[in-house]
């Protein structure tokens, strides 16, 4: 079996634990659901909403500059589906949460 396997001792992280953003990005799925017997739509969670909004904001900014090559990545296309629907939903959630949506996307 795999008991004999050993990780190479190399740790690429420069000392210390991994950056929180890197951990969260991996352990939180792309805003789908908490699994198992417990079902929660993560999009209903303010903190995650903010995080996803940041990701979308950054993707938008990159797109404005003509950089959108990762959009062809099938893994990103799968999952949460229609980005504009997601964005509309985020706006409504932000409004409901009293977060004043920053203006970076207000022109869209």
């Amino acid at each position: 079996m795999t008991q004999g396997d050993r990780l190479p001792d190399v740790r690429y992280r420069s000392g210390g634990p991994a950056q929180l953003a890197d951990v969260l990005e991996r352990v939180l799925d792309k805003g789908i659901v908490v699994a198992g017997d417990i079902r929660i739509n993560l999009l209903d969670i303010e903190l995650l909403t903010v995080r996803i909004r940041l990701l979308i904001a950054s993707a938008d900014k990159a797109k404005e500059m003509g950089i959108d090559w990762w959009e062809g990545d099938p893994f990103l296309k799968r999952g949460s589906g229609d980005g504009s629907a997601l964005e509309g939903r985020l706006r409504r959630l932000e409004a409901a949460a009293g977060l004043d949506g920053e203006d970076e996307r207000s022109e869209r």
Partner: protein
Amino acid sequence: MSEPAPPPSAAWYVYGVVSATTQPEGTGIGARPVELVPEGDVAALVSVVPADEFGEASLLERLNDRSWLERTAREHEDTLERALARTTVVPFRLCTVYESREHVVEFLSAHGPALAGLLQRLEGRIELGVKAYFAGAAAPEPDEPQSGREYLLRRQREREAAEEAARFKSEFAQASHEVLAAAAEEARANPPQPPELSGRADEMLLNGAYLVRRDDGRLAEAVAELESRFGPRGVTYELTGPWPPYNFVPPEVVGT
């Protein structure tokens, strides 16, 4: 330090799936011991958590609590990294919670073949992350222009430099991802993190995840090669890991 007493009402938190021959080790969330729930050839890596903390009602609240989220995410990650150091893991995302041990067994037996297949696919593999940052175009010339003509020339130079930087940005990240993907078995390009997440002023233009054999040094070599190629143009690379292969577990396998 003595072990915390079992919670009055328990739920089963699943970190991921390993081979049934794995020995559980250490503690997980809330310093409770990590256990194995085997079913056939595969086993869930679990620990008992308080049902009131991880129930639907309070979980919503907890996930909004930044310090709770950070602590739980780290405990989840640490538990999987400890397992990854010794064996192959199919990592689950945060908060896969079952009401009973029997439900964990039911999940395993329902998804047994898919989980066993994925364990076999991931055998001896780890995930590495590579991020690339671009320092941006050169700063504008500091001294005052001496004439209108010089001013206009300078503006033109700046415009050309900005266009060149934009062209370079749209090309180097994809070129980097292609070079890295060629050194990996599977590759995913995730959306770059904004500075609020990355904590760096330089713009992130590549946020890739790469599945490699744990003893394969080719990805690190590819990063070094890219560094010598694009470094002089203001690009820096950051290699992270080894990570449990989160980016290479299809969502349909993990019980969602």
